[in-house]
């Protein structure tokens, strides 16, 4: 059986599934329940500085978008950091860690961007014997208006400065949580590394308005007729998160910097994907908030089952394994030719592949054969775009089949070249170089 014990910057947990800093980790009650359910660790909901706690709105604080059967796809919140007193949180953290020594307890912190503020809170957190801290440089709403959260994460110099303070005034491992609300996530990641961070975690939530109440003419969630942007997360955010994780994982400046992957992780497969792209573990919030803590059972059994099937004995065996295959467009092999193929036994004849191709792509799928409803790819028109695969409601009904070198591409009437060749040397590229550059 695969061993899924996790060691993330020296923080050990029985599995790589942590709950992210968020409502599910706001109190001992919830965290105890999570540990009983089997979660490997938590990042305690963000603590602020000593003093009167922040206040939250008293109206709706979540928004969502849904897919079929109201399955939640995207989620948004305008909740702030913990609105409980610092002392109560610290006491609970200490007790929980004592009760659950084998689980990871990391404390998220957000205080003003002043050295004294960080200097004051770090010893208090350290005293709880928590395993580490996570710097909340990500929250895009509310706190950012007060110069914290994303307002820090968007300025690499601030990121580096605060990380440096934390490393200076604390012995705990430092995880720097990054905001996706930047044009290039590698810059704050590099800054965090320069400041000496032990790891980065990403992504925090994305600026968003999930919907508009068309009666009130106001964004949702709506508070007394007004709304504000919130932080977006959930399954719909996963592709954005995967990309940002991969960019940091393959950036020479941050290569090998540990990453805790966050963003729409819902199943074991999502977790495996983040980890394949370089994440040392994953953090989950939305899925737990939608389905409850029990989902971790599926994540654990699914990940173990897949690892056994693939022969991965430990998490390290596959962590980062897909990073080397993330490259720039210019290095993609232009001599690789695929054609869609429809499995007629699986086809239910909905015709969606046909109309998608006919209306919006390359007119490469038939609608009838001998007067009968029939959907078949015409190899002489198919550019191999994969649209039909993506719109087909039946899994594995349409496959992309690569032409073997030497075979004739019916569309271009050219024989498939066995040699790798990319845009950098393509004759149509005005800046073409002579030698082929390999993919990274």
């Amino acid at each position, binding site marked *: 059986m695969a061993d899924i014990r996790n060691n993330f910057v020296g923080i050990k947990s029985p599995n790589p599934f942590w709950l992210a800093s968020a409502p599910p980790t706001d109190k001992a009650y919830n965290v105890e329940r999570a540990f009983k359910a089997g979660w490997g660790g938590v990042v305690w909901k963000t603590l602020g500085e000593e003093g009167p706690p922040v206040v939250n709105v008293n109206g709706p604080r979540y928004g969502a978008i849904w897919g*079929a*059967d*109201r399955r939640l796809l995207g989620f948004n919140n305008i909740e702030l950091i913990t609105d409980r007193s610092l002392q109560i949180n610290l006491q609970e953290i200490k007790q929980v860690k004592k009760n659950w020594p084998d689980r990871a307890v990391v404390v998220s912190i957000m205080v003003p961007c002043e050295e004294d503020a960080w200097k004051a809170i770090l010893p208090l957190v350290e005293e709880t014997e928590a395993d580490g801290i996570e710097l909340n440089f990500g929250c895009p709403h509310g706190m950012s208006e007060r110069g914290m959260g994303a307002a820090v994460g968007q300025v690499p110099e601030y990121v580096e400065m605060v990380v440096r303070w934390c490393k200076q005034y604390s012995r705990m491992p430092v995880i720097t949580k990054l905001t996706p609300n930047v044009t290039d996530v590698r810059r704050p990641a590099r800054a965090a590394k320069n400041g000496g961070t032990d790891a980065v975690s990403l992504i925090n939530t994305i600026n968003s308005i999930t919907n508009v109440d068309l009666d009130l003419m106001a964004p949702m969630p709506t508070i007394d007729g007004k709304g504000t942007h919130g932080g977006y997360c959930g399954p719909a955010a996963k592709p954005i998160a995967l990309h940002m994780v991969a960019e940091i994982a393959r950036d020479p400046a941050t290569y090998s910097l540990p990453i805790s992957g966050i963003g729409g992780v819902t199943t074991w497969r999502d977790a495996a994907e983040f980890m394949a792209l370089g994440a040392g573990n994953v953090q989950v919030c939305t899925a737990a908030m939608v389905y409850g803590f029990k989902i971790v059972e599926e994540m654990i059994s699914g990940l173990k089952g897949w690892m056994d099937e693939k022969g991965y004995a430990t998490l390290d065996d596959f962590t980062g394994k897909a990073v080397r295959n993330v490259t720039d467009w210019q290095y993609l092999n232009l001599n690789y030719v695929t054609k869609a193929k429809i499995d007629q036994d699986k086809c*239910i004849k*909905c*015709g*969606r592949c046909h*109309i998608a191709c006919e209306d919006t792509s390359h007119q490469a799928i038939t*609608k009838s054969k001998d007067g009968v409803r029939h959907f078949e790819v015409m190899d002489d028109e198919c550019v191999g775009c994969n649209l039909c695969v993506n719109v087909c409601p*039946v899994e594995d009904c349409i496959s992309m089949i690569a032409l073997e070198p030497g075979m004739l591409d019916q569309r271009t009437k050219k024989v498939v070249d066995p040699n790798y060749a990319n845009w950098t040397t393509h004759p149509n590229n005005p800046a073409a170089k002579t030698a082929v550059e390999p993919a990274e």
Partner: protein
Amino acid sequence: MGVQGLKDGIAAGRLAADQYAENFSDLHAPLGRHEALVEADRCYFCYDAPCMNACPTEIDIPLFIREISTGNALGAAETIFKQNILGGMCARVCPTEQLCEEACVRMEAEGKPVQIGLLQRYATDEAMEKDKQFFTRATPTGKRIAVVGAGPAGLACAHRLAMHGHDVVVYDGKPKAGGLNEYGIASYKTPDGFAQKEVDYITAIGGITIVNEKLLGRDFSLPELLDGFDSVFLGMGLGGVNALRADGENADGALNAVDFIANLRQSDDLSTLPIGRRVVVIGGGMTAVDAAVQSKLLGAEEVTMCYRRGKEHMNASEFEQDLAASKGVVIRHWVAPKRVLTEAGKVTGIELEYTALKDGKLQGTGETFTLPCDQVMKAIGQTLATDGEGVEIAGGKIAIDEEGRTSNPRVWAGGDCATGGEDLTVTAVAQGRDAAESITRFLQSA
């Protein structure tokens, strides 16, 4: 009067009073909003959708389901009514398992089609409950058209004609409009006076006058109509009933299934309707099932449907047959009535002969048996009640072309009385609607 239960012979009040309402309530409960949204989400929005092609009125099913899924049930209703103004009734009575739902790609995918009929009902109910009308009359043309029969074909024709600005007078032999929707369909398929609500919804467009209790051939003739109107549409259905041609079929206790159903549909108090303790229904179509099931629901102890051919030859759909079986009706195949047995003028049983196909021909085997019963209902098909009034007849029905034109250039026909249909409400609607378009083209060119 107490509950009559197992009383011999023919008796009313076999059930406890509250049992009637329960037995004759909606066969399929309507979908609530949540159910409708969940079901609508199952639709794949197919290209050139097979369900749409399977619908005789070609309702754009994927579009109306998509409209439901986006919270636009009224838009969905408009999409439906554009093609089929009786979309509400069709949602209730269509054999969807042989039409749209059989064609649904989810049948092929997982054997469970999208519940198109129920979704259609959801949308049309919403519009009818809100009395939302989608169509208005065009500028009056001054043309007058007579429609004979206020059933599905006649109403669909009248509505489309009214839309085009013509004035329509609909003649019907019965006291109420609606045709078989009002008199001929099992009560649990269309409870709560839906047929009349639908007539009101359709005629609300204006320009349609319904004249009741005027029967073609009895109260007026086709030539008379042609004198008074620019065109005539015949949609009077089949007013005659086939005879068993068996001894005793006129005895007390032998009746036509259509009359039994009509009486039941018009009854204000089902507990006053007499029903046999043991009922035999002769026939294998929808009417036979409707009569058999409702006999059972009225409290008959034993109900047997006797059909002279095999299960695969029955006109009643698989769903209808299962429904009958689930209500306790016994269906016997390969038996034909030979003689209705009577005592003192009352039915006491029926003698049946086993049948078989020999060289492709149905024949009696000579072997007979007797089923004791108090009532025999005949549901072996209906016939045109007129001689055609001068228009050509083919195979016992009024011959029409693909536009509904008869041999008389000013007369159109559709529905059960005409050729080309399948004795379904939905095909009658399609024929009535298309005839209205044809009539309009004719009047414009005239």
